[in-house]
């Protein structure tokens, strides 16, 4: 039986920083599919009002659809800070427009920082509105677990993600799906603390049944043989765990996007299949 314990971390030493970005304009992406067919589809940016956290990650007529609002900063260095310092699970609030004071959470990273808001107020948020993010989690470490490296992970989210330890000391991590090592696409070679890794949804399995996984936006997923301590790379015997935050593309090599939360040698983790391992559940629990 796993032992339920609150993970020991250095969270009390971490700095909480208030950052501001602006909701990006929508994009119309011209993409060429593997068959050579060119299409123009709704792309990244704007505010996605029809698809929420917890909804299907695939099957939409879109290119890299992003959860919620896509937030960026016009100044490159400030934009990078927003990308690196904000963590999945951090709280955010709309500052402008009819949606002002609406609260949301950071749901992922792509070109912009992805912030989810409650569906009933999403329609009140638009490109150009400022969003403030309480950035908290950069530098987070698990005490006594030097081989486990965390990225973009709010300390409260980490507590929800980890489900105690196995009798042999391995950390139990709840996941909704696992991807085979050949699933990794665009995002390889990029910094693991920014952007995300595109994964071929065809290679996702339900960790409990082994059947093809029914992927949802916000799902916590693992990828075999990926080392995300620094850049995202293949390394046999490692695992990367993250949250699905964008949909797939018509273009080859681009799949559903996983923002990295945690990486470790596979023998330090015990992956526990859990259909509720979706950011929506964390958000509901945090709001309660």
């Amino acid at each position, binding site marked *: 039986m796993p032992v339920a314990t609150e993970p020991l971390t250095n969270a009390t030493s971490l700095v909480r920083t208030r950052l501001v970005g602006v909701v990006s304009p929508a994009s119309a992406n011209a993409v060429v599919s*593997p068959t050579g067919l060119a299409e123009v589809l709704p792309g990244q940016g704007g505010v996605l009002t029809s698809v929420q956290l917890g909804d299907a990650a695939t099957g939409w007529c879109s290119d890299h659809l992003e959860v919620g609002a896509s937030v960026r900063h016009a100044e490159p260095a400030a934009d990078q800070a927003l990308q690196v310092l904000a963590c999945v699970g951090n709280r955010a609030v709309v500052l402008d427009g009819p949606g002002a004071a609406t609260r949301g959470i950071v749901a992922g990273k792509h070109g912009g920082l992805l912030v989810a808001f409650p569906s009933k107020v999403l329609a009140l948020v638009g490109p150009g509105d400022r969003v403030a993010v309480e950035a908290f989690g950069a530098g987070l470490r698990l005490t006594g677990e030097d081989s486990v490296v965390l990225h973009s992970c709010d300390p409260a989210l980490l507590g929800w993600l980890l489900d105690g330890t196995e009798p042999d000391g391995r950390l139990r991590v709840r996941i909704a799906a696992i991807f085979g090592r050949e699933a990794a696409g665009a995002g390889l070679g990029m910094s693991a603390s920014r952007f995300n890794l595109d994964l071929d949804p065809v290679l996702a399995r339900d960790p409990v049944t082994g059947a093809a996984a029914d992927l949802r936006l916000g799902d916590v997923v693992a990828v075999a043989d990926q080392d995300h301590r620094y850049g995202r790379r293949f390394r046999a015997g490692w695992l990367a765990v993250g949250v699905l935050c964008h949909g797939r593309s018509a273009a080859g*090599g681009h799949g559903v996007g996983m923002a990295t939360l945690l990486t470790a040698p596979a023998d330090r983790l015990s992956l526990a299949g859990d259909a509720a391992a979706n950011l929506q559940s964390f958000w509901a629990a945090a709001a309660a």
Partner: protein
Amino acid sequence: MTRPHDNRSALVTVTAEAVVAPARWHPPGPGTGDDGSALLPGCGGVAVGVHMGDEVGRWLGDHLMPGAAIEDRADGQPGPGPVHMLACLGNRVRAATGDLLGVVAGKRGGLAPGFLPPSLLAVEAPDERLERICPGERVMVETVGRGLQLTDHPRICLSNLSPALLDLLPVQEQGRGLAVGVMAWLPPWAAGSGIGQDAWIGDLDIAEENALTGQALRYGDLVAFQDIDSSAGRFRRPGYVSIGLMCHGPGTEDGHGPGACILISGPADELAAVPGPASLGPQLAELAARS
């Protein structure tokens, strides 16, 4: 031995302007899990003494390409412009004086759409010519190769391949398909940075060098990526193969490694990659010296 037919008689040659790229310093990227991530040259400038046929690991560089790095003339950090998108390996390059400098021998480019710079072409040339050119100088590239197809193999896609280099490629008709010689055969998980990007932009990195099992590759060697298609972007597609030419050396960061510019891709049942001594390095150096 029958070589495939092609449509080269229909191709046009267009002279495009480029400029010798300055050496650039990019802010540190993701770093590496291995020790000693040194800061090394390799992005832009003129690498005198580095040539096709050299071992890619011989030099202490970061994504180092042989010879002169050239790029589209643009304001600020250039993305892939007409020179990058039209130039093919084997195209001739003239210096501002009109004298022949060398031939295009490689491409380097961004990791994925939206991450485009640097967008460099390598020009293989004899040292005595490389020593006379400087960053900022104008050069002319005689671009030809866009549209090149193998007439009897419409499922096979050519990219970045000039007719001159096609003539040097170790390819022959074999049954109903083609056989191409390659020095190395790489599993799909060895493909790193460059997945998801247009096949005409830059290259595909071998990010898992264990896949080479100690084999030392040279600039110009042909390598095959299993289960990667490059017909419309470089992407994983079981049953396909992409064959490229080694054009840049190892990178110092995770997910990067020595890179190949993709020349030919298609279904493996029509395009067979045959292991053997397959390198175009010496021929490209000779072509550059001759031109």
